[in-house]
């Protein structure tokens, strides 16, 4: 299903180990940026009291999303199987348009570059981009 090479997986896992201490910060920062830069994404959070980018709800949700990404790293050898439950959640309950996965991935990578400028090299960037794309694909698996 995925075109992630052994090298890609290695790079993702290595970089992940480097940033593991800041995963929550990455998550809430990426979430905030997504709400600011792509205001249409706020439509999914109309049920929040406070949809502002640095609200407690947004922060918490960024951490949740990033937790999902962290989980996906552990399932990198079979994302489709590993993310089955999450895919069902997104397909039947959340019904997030998959175009938004791309948006979130972009924001995550902007934050990674921002917080780890020396480590987010072009080689790591391409591996991470491929991984997040494969993740998005696995997440959309149960949509139709």
């Amino acid at each position: 299903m995925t075109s992630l090479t052994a090298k890609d997986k290695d790079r993702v896992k290595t970089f992940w180990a480097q940033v593991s201490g800041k995963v929550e910060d990455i998550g809430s920062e990426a979430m905030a940026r997504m709400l600011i830069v792509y205001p249409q994404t706020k439509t999914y959070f109309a049920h929040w009291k406070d949809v502002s980018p640095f609200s407690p709800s947004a922060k918490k949700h960024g951490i949740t999303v990033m937790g999902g990404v962290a989980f996906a790293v552990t399932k990198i050898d079979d994302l489709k199987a590993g993310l089955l439950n999450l895919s069902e959640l997104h397909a039947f309950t959340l019904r997030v348009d998959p175009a938004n996965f791309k948006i979130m991935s972009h924001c995550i990578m902007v934050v990674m570059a921002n917080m780890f400028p020396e480590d987010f090299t072009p080689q790591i960037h391409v591996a991470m981009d491929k991984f997040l794309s494969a993740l998005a694909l696995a997440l959309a698996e149960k949509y139709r």
Partner: protein
Amino acid sequence: MVEWTDFERATIADIFSKMEYEVIGPAALSRCLVVYPWTQRYFGNFGNLYNAAAIIGNPMVAKHGTTILHGLDRAVKNMDNIKSEYAELSVLHSEKLHVDPDNFKLLSDCLTIVVSAKLGKEFNGEVQAAFQKFLAVVVTSLGRQYH
């Protein structure tokens, strides 16, 4: 006509006033060629693009990256007329260079990431929004004259 807020104008002016063209340009283009390897199709005569290290160290890529980044200057100088500023360049990219306009978005994403890495904390959400809006207008204008 694109509406720009004072904040957006100031942000774009600020970013480009201290832009290190010879660092950021090459970094953005080489990153694009590494992350989206199909973009290499337009650089058949650039010599060694066989792997990431070769691309990043390639002097022709570096030179061209700088050229492309300077290409944004005209938009910075005339934010209210970006569409007309790029009419000629759009024709060039379509008729002569035959570049798929989707590639403009890929390069602008890489530029955003490179600038994010360079500016750090200063490149917050609002700044990112302004920068991406600016690049989106440039990208649209460059694709405008395709037919």
